[in-house]
C-alpha cells in the first residue's frame, strides 16, 4: 500500500491557506475582544455614530457580528422547532400555523416587546440592547429556514430510515447522518436567503425610536440611517459601498465554499458543479485534513454497547402521556392568556382609529399588489430569457443573488429624493420602493422555472410555428407558473414587511409619510402607542395569512396538480 499521494501532502510546506488561517485567527480574536468590550460597556441608548469613512470597517464588524449571531440563533431555533414540528406526534397541527403567523408579523411588531424587556433585564449594560437588535435581525432570517428544514425532514426517504434503524444509529448519529445530512442542501440555500433577509431591516434593527426613547447601536445600519437623516450624500455612498463589500466578502468567503461543500449531500451528479476557489484551496490545505480527522471522531464516537437493544425511534412516545398533556396545557393556557390580553388591548381603540387602520390596510394592500405586478412586468420576460440560456444564467445568477442580498431600504431615500424632484409623492414612490426590495424573489424563481423547461418543448413550439403570443400562452406561462407562484408568495410577504420602511422615513431632517399600514406601524412605534401598534401588526398578520390561505394556497394546489412539469 505505497502511494505517493499522501506523502506529497504531508511533506508540503505551509500552504498560504494555513498562513491566511493564522492571520484570520488573530483578526478574529481582535474582533471578539472589540465586540465584547462594546457589548459589556455601560448602557448607551444613543451611540455616537461617526460619519467618517475610517469608522466603517468597525461598524461593518459590529453589524456582521450581529448578523452572524442572529444566524446562529436562527439555526438553533430551526433545529429545535423544525425537528419538533416534524417528529413529535401531533405537534405540527399547532406549530405549523403558529410559524405561519409569526412569519407574517413585521419586524417592528417584535420591537417594543424585545427592547423594553431586554433593556429592563440589563438596565446598566449595552448587552440588553444588543440582544434586542440581534433578535430583530433574527426575525428577518429564521422563518424560511425553519420551513425548509421541516419540509426536508418530512420527506426523508423511508428506505434510509430503515437503514438507520437496522444500523441501530443512536439518536444523535441518526440526526447528524440522516436528518441533517438530508436537509443540508435546502438548508444551505435558505441560509443564504436568510442572511440577505436579515440585512434588509438592518437600518431599523440598529436605529429606532420607541416612544420617548431614541436607540442607536454602532453599526452599518445606524451609520446609514444617520447619513440619510442628515442628508450627507458622501457618507451614504460610503455606507452603500461598505455594505456591498461586506456582502461580497461574506458571499465569497462563507457561502460559496459552503455551497460547494454541500454538493456532496445531493443525490444526483450535477453536470456543472458550483465552484468556489476558496473551497478548492481549503480542501487541499493541511488545516482541512486536521479538521476532517476531528470530524471523524465526532461521527463514530468510540463506545461499547450491548447488541440487540433497539434505540427507540425519536419523537413518538418520547414524552410521557402526562408530561405531554402538561406541556400542552401550559401552551394552551399561555395562548389563551395572550389572546385575552391582546383583545383587551384592541378594545381600547376608538372606531375612528379602526377606520383609519382599515383604510391604511387597503392602501398598503394596493401598493403591495401594484409592486408585485410591476415587478412581474420586467422580471418575467427577463427571467425567461436568462433561464433559457445556460451560459447567461451561470454568469447572472450570482450577480442577481448579490443584488438581492443588498438591503434595499439603504437606498430608499435616494430613490424618493429623485422622484420628489419630478413631483412624485411618497404615496406613489413607495410602490417603487417595495418593488426594489422584492423583485429579486420573482426574478430568481422565474429563472429557475424557465431553465427547467425541457428543450423538447421549445422545439415543439417552434415546429408548431407558435406565434410569440401563443408561445407565451401555451408554453412559457404554464411551465413557469409553479415557480412564478413561489416567487409571488415570497415577494408579497416581503413587500408587506418592507412597507414599514417604505411608507415612512426620515429624510434631511423632515419626516416623509403617506397613508398606509406600514406608516401606521412605524408611527405607532415611534410614539410608543402600543394599542395602535398591536392592532396594526395584527391587521398585517391577518391580511398576509388570510391572503395566503384564500389565494395562494388554492393556486399552489392548482399549480402542483396541473402545471407541474414532471407530471
Amino acid at each position: 500500500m505505497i502511494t505517493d499521494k499522501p506523502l506529497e501532502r504531508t511533506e508540503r510546506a505551509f500552504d498560504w491557506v494555513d498562513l491566511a488561517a493564522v492571520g484570520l485567527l488573530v483578526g478574529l480574536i481582535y474582533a471578539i475582544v472589540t465586540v465584547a468590550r462594546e457589548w459589556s460597556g455601560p448602557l448607551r441608548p444613543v451611540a455616537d455614530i461617526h460619519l467618517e469613512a475610517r469608522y466603517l470597517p468597525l461598524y461593518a464588524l459590529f453589524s456582521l457580528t450581529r448578523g452572524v449571531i442572529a444566524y446562529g440563533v436562527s439555526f438553533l431555533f430551526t433545529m429545535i422547532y423544525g425537528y419538533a414540528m416534524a417528529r413529535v406526534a401531533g405537534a405540527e397541527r399547532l406549530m405549523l400555523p403558529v410559524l405561519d403567523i409569526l412569519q407574517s408579523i413585521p419586524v417592528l411588531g417584535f420591537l417594543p416587546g424585545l427592547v423594553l424587556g431586554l433593556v429592563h433585564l440589563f438596565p446598566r449594560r449595552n448587552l440588553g440592547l444588543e440582544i434586542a437588535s440581534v433578535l430583530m435581525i433574527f426575525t428577518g432570517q429564521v422563518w424560511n429556514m425553519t420551513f425548509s428544514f421541516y419540509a426536508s425532514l418530512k420527506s426523508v426517504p423511508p428506505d434510509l430510515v430503515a437503514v438507520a434503524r437496522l444500523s441501530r444509529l443512536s439518536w444523535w448519529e441518526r440526526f447528524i447522518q440522516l436528518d441533517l445530512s438530508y436537509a443540508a442542501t435546502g438548508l444551505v440555500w435558505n441560509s443564504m436567503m436568510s442572511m440577505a433577509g436579515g440585512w434588509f431591516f438592518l437600518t431599523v434593527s440598529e436605529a429606532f425610536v420607541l416612544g420617548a426613547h431614541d436607540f442607536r447601536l454602532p453599526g452599518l445600519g445606524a451609520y446609514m440611517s444617520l447619513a440619510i437623516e442628515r442628508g450627507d450624500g458622501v457618507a451614504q455612498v460610503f455606507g452603500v459601498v461598505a455594505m456591498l463589500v461586506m456582502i461580497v466578502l461574506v458571499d465569497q468567503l462563507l457561502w460559496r465554499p459552503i455551497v460547494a461543500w454541500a454538493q456532496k449531500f445531493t443525490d444526483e451528479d450535477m453536470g456543472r458543479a458550483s465552484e468556489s476557489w476558496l473551497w478548492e484551496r481549503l480542501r487541499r490545505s493541511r488545516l482541512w485534513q486536521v479538521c476532517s480527522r476531528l470530524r471523524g471522531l465526532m461521527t463514530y464516537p468510540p463506545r461499547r454497547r450491548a447488541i440487540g437493544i433497539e434505540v427507540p425511534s425519536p419523537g413518538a412516545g418520547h414524552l410521557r402521556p402526562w408530561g405531554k398533556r402538561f406541556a400542552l396545557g401550559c401552551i394552551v393556557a399561555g395562548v389563551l392568556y395572550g389572546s385575552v390580553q391582546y383583545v383587551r388591548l384592541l378594545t381600547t381603540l376608538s372606531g375612528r382609529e379602526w377606520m383609519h387602520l382599515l383604510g391604511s390596510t387597503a392602501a398598503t394592500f394596493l401598493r403591495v399588489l401594484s409592486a408585485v405586478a410591476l415587478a412581474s412586468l420586467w422580471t418575467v420576460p427577463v427571467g425567461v430569457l436568462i433561464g433559457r440560456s445556460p451560459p447567461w444564467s451561470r454568469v447572472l445568477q450570482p450577480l442577481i443573488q448579490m443584488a438581492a442580498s443588498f438591503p434595499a431600504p439603504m437606498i430608499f431615500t435616494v430613490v424618493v429624493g429623485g422622484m420628489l424632484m419630478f413631483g412624485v409623492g411618497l404615496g406613489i414612490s413607495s410602490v417603487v420602493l417595495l418593488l426594489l426590495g422584492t423583485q429579486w424573489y420573482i426574478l430568481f424563481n422565474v429563472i429557475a422555472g424557465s431553465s427547467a423547461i425541457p428543450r423538447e418543448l421549445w422545439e415543439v413550439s417552434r415546429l408548431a410555428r407558435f406565434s410569440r403570443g401563443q408561445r407565451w400562452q401555451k408554453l412559457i406561462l404554464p411551465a413557469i407558473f409553479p415557480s412564478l407562484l413561489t416567487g409571488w408568495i415570497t415577494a408579497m410577504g416581503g413587500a408587506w414587511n418592507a412597507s414599514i420602511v417604505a411608507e415612512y422615513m426620515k429624510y434631511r431632517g423632515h419626516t416623509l409619510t403617506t397613508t398606509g399600514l406600514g406608516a401606521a406601524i412605524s408611527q405607532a412605534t415611534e410614539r410608543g402607542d402600543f394599542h395602535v401598534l398591536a392592532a396594526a401588526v395584527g391587521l398585517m398578520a391577518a391580511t398576509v395569512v388570510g391572503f395566503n390561505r384564500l389565494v395562494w394556497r388554492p393556486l399552489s394546489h392548482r399549480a402542483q396538480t396541473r402545471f407541474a412539469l414532471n407530471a
Partner: protein
Amino acid sequence: MIMASPLLEIRNLFQRFPIAGGQSIEVLHDINLQIREQEVVAILGPSGCGKSTLLRAVIGLERPSSGEVLYRGKLQTGLNPSAGLVFQNFALFPWLTVHQNVAVGLSSLPLDDADRERRVRRVVDAVGLEGFEEAYPKELSGGMKQRVGFARALAVEPELLCMDEAFSALDVLTGETLRNEVIDLYSRKTSPVNTILMVTHSISEAVFMATRIVVMGAHPGTIRAVLDNPLPYPRDERQRELRMLSEKLHALITQTVIPEEPAPAAVAGARRPVVQSIPTVSMAATIGLLEVLENQGAMELFELARHVDLEFTQLLLIVKAAELFGWVSTPGQRVEMTEQGRKFLAADINTRKQLLNAKLRGIFVFKMVIQMLEQSETGEVPDEIILSQLALYFPHERPQRILRTVVAWARYAELLKYSSTRKVVYGFNPAKSAVTSPKNAEH
C-alpha cells in the same frame, strides 16, 4: 441437507394498513412459516401480495397487526439484531463514501477502530469493491451500488441475510452476475451468512437461488404453496429438475392469478370475495397481447412472457384482463385467442370502442359506477364516494388503483369521463343521459 432446528418461525401473522377514510386493507392474512438454518428461502408472488411487508415484519421494521415472529425460539419484539437487509433501490446515503456507507451498520457494535476497519475491508473485498472505498454512491453504476448494499448488510455478519427484490433494479446481465456471486458467497461457507431469506417476483431467480420456495397469492397475501428445491450448487438453469420446478411454479402462479375454477379452500386459505375485481393493467397492453397472439398463434404462458419480455405475473394480469373481455381463453398453461378476440382485433377504432363499451357494462365494477351515476341528480359522482364503495367491496386492494383502471378503460370505451381537477366521474355525454353508448357520442 441437515435438518436444523427452526431459526425463524412466523405464527398466525396478519398485517393491516389504514387507508384514507378511516378504512383499512388487509395485506397479509394468517401467515405461518418456518425457516431453518442453512436454507435459502425465496418468497415468490405477484406484485401486491405483501411479500415485502412480510420481510419487513420478519426483520422487525414493521410491527404485525397480530401474530408473532420467533427467532431461535424467542419472541421477537424489536429489530432482529442478527439480520441484515439488502434493499431493492440500494438505500445508500448519498453523502457518505462507499467505505462510510459500509461502516454505518458497525457504529453500534462494540468494536475498536482496528476491528471495524478490518471488517469493512473484508466485506469490501468480498463483494469486489476494492478501489471504490472513497467513491460516493452517485459515481457508481447500479451494480456497484448494490454491491455496497450487500457489503453493508454483510458487515454486521448477520446470521440471516434478507434481500428485498435485491436484483430487480439492475439490468439483466448485472443481476445475473450478482446472483451468482451471492450464491457463491453462501455456498463457500467462509462467510457467516448461512441462511438467506429473499423476496422476488422472478420465478427463474427463485429457482436458481433458493432451496425452498414459498409461493404467495395476492388480495390478501397468503401462502399458497411451499416447494423444496434441494439441487446442489452450482446450478445451471438448463438442468432438468430446475426446468420442471420452473414449470410447476408457473402453473402454480397462474392458478393463483387466473384460477381455472373457484380455488379449493385448502389452497386459497382465505375466503374468496363475492364479486370480482379487475386486473389493473392498461388497455393498450391488453390489445397488444391480441396482436402478439394473432402473429404467433396460441402460446404457452411462460413462452409468451419471455417473448414479450414481461415479468410473468404482470403478463398473467394482462391475460386475465383479456379473458375478462372474452378475447382469450386459457386452457391449462396455454393462451388462445377466441372468436371474439379476433373480431375485436379486425374492427376499426370506433367499432372496437363499441365492442368494449358493451363488455364493460357487464363487469361488476362498471355496473356499480353506472348505477351510481344514474342515481345522481347532477349526473356526476365524486371519486371519494366511488373509492369508499370500492374499499367496501375489495378490502384487500388499493381502491385508488382500481379507480384509475376503471377510468382509463371507460375513457377508451367512451363509457365514462373523469375530471381530475374537479375529481368527479360523469357520463360520456351527460347532456342526453347519464351514460350513452358510443354511437351517440361520435364527434
